[in-house]
């Protein structure tokens, strides 16, 4: 790797980390920083421009955009992280079952994974939301149900590789079985790459999450969320175009932060192939 390349990877890591630190900070201290109640309606100051009492202006109901943006950071980040964690747990569980359950279980589980991967994820997510009705919960469930197979496949591969390592064989010979074997010997091998995948995927999860909010299929009004804010702003694209900027930029920055972090981590750990799941 050339000097320029190694400098570049450090830059991605630093930039991604800095953006994410800023967003996490905003989510944590947002309620203190927010100048107004994000749900408070001010009918006299509808669609106000930035400046003065409202730093980023007000929306169509006269709600403070800046406050809604800060509160939205909590929802977008916490929901995406929770969903990411749920996918990770489900993927680990299925991957371990396939990897340790013997050839027949492995075959059946992996065929199921293949079948799932034969269909476009966003469209099946729409199907789940269609069945349960639009809400934060059904959007999250839809994402979890459709994003786990990639993790399961990777975990299964890692488990199969780790199983043949000498110290794992030694542990099995000396009587380590079941959960003890998984916790003590296999999980430490499998968890780091799985966590890396999770950090890579969180960016695209935020994108999907806000997209569902934008369609009205995720977080429901009046809860402040970036995607929903964007879809409300859409109706005032000519009268108050500045409303488009803040929520869109927030989504973009959050996704960029995770993508840069992932890119940086991948190159720092020299896992070039890792991006091609």
């Amino acid at each position, binding site marked *: 790797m*050339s000097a*320029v*390349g190694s400098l*570049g990877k450090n830059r*991605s890591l630093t930039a991604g980390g800095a953006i994410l630190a800023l967003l996490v900070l905003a989510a944590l201290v947002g309620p203190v920083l927010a100048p107004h109640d994000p749900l408070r309606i001010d009918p006299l100051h509808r669609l106000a421009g930035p400046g003065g009492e409202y730093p980023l202006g007000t929306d169509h109901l006269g709600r403070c955009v800046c406050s809604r943006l800060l509160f939205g950071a909590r929802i977008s980040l916490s929901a995406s992280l929770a969903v990411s964690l749920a996918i990770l747990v489900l993927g680990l569980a299925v991957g371990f079952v396939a990897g340790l359950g013997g050839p027949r279980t492995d075959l059946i589980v992996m*065929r*199921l994974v*293949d*079948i*799932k991967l*034969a*269909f*476009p*994820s*966003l*469209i*099946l997510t*729409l*199907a*789940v*939301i*269609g*069945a*349960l*009705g*639009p809400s934060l919960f059904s959007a999250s469930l839809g994402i979890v149900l459709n994003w786990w197979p990639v993790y399961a496949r990777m975990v299964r591969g890692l488990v199969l590789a780790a199983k043949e390592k000498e110290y794992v064989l030694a542990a099995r010979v000396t009587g380590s079985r079941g959960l003890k074997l998984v916790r003590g010997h296999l999980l430490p091998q499998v968890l780091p790459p799985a966590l890396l995948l999770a950090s890579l995927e969180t*960016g695209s999860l935020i*994108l999907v999450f*806000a*997209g569902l909010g*934008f*369609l*009205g*299929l995720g977080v429901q009004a009046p809860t402040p969320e970036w*995607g929903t804010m*964007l879809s409300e*702003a*859409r109706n005032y*694209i*000519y009268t108050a*175009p500045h409303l*488009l900027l803040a*929520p*869109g930029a927030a*989504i*973009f920055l959050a*996704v*960029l932060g995770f*993508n*840069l972090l992932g*890119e940086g981590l991948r190159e720092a750990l020299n896992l070039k192939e890792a991006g*091609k799941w």
Partner: protein
Amino acid sequence: MTGYLIRRLLWLPPTLFGLSLICFALLHLAPGDPGELLLRQSGGPSSAESAAQFKAEMGLDKSLLQRYRLWLGRAVRLDLGESFTTGEPVRDQILSRMPATIKLALTAFGLMLAATIPIGLLSALRPQGWLDQGSRLLAVVFASLPNYWFGLLLMFLFARYWQIFNIVGHDRPADIILPALTLALGMTAVQSRLARERFLAVLSEDYIRTALAKGLNRRQVFIRHALKNALAPLLHLWGASFGYLLGGSILVETVFAWPGAARLAVDAVLNRDYPVVQGYVILMALIFVGVNLAVDLGHALLDPRIRQSLVAGEK
């Protein structure tokens, strides 16, 4: 290698079976009794008696397995029931909206190819050159850009500020440019990087070195040897990307009020119109499965090693 094709085709029935289970579950395991829901939607009486009669008519009093068989029998004939909101057959409703969705997806796909191949090839020819570095940076930025936001910004700039395109129209040929551009953007960012890696791999092959060593023109070598050999693996990536285009059209059609099937499906989800959602999911999944099957078969035909073994097998 003929074995590969047979295995590939044998894989189709279980995939379709899986799809049928998912779609059946969507309609029949949804919370709330579909019979009552349907009655309430149609504004009919909701007494216990009429609900029971209605359920018998719709076959909802039968066991789950019987219902699945009934449903499957109709679904294979593309009889997907009627929309709860309009009462029209779901099939007609979706098929009338499909051309717009397909047109959008294909245009975006064309734009993606037109950008991906030259960017991928040129940045592979000069790794770490300005184009390579630039396209790498742009790939991260564009892959992070929410296409629904980008679409709204485009719409504002072009239609309002510069008054070039008409945003609400979809009749003139030019009206497809902005939606297709929006849909293609994120995909192009990712795919051009993947194409670069494929081209890099091919360019380091022995036969490229041989061709250059024997004095062939560089341009000819790249176009005739490199491009041709990178094409087969790229085909798979493009097939997979088609699914993302179909998924992405859900958002882009909403942004641009594009009269496609995806927008119909989003409205159906919001109105709890299950049959329409189900019909859309079935059709899109079938298209995606079909595209990937075509890609795998096309790959087999493109790759001379596989093609020859097929011909040899037929003798």
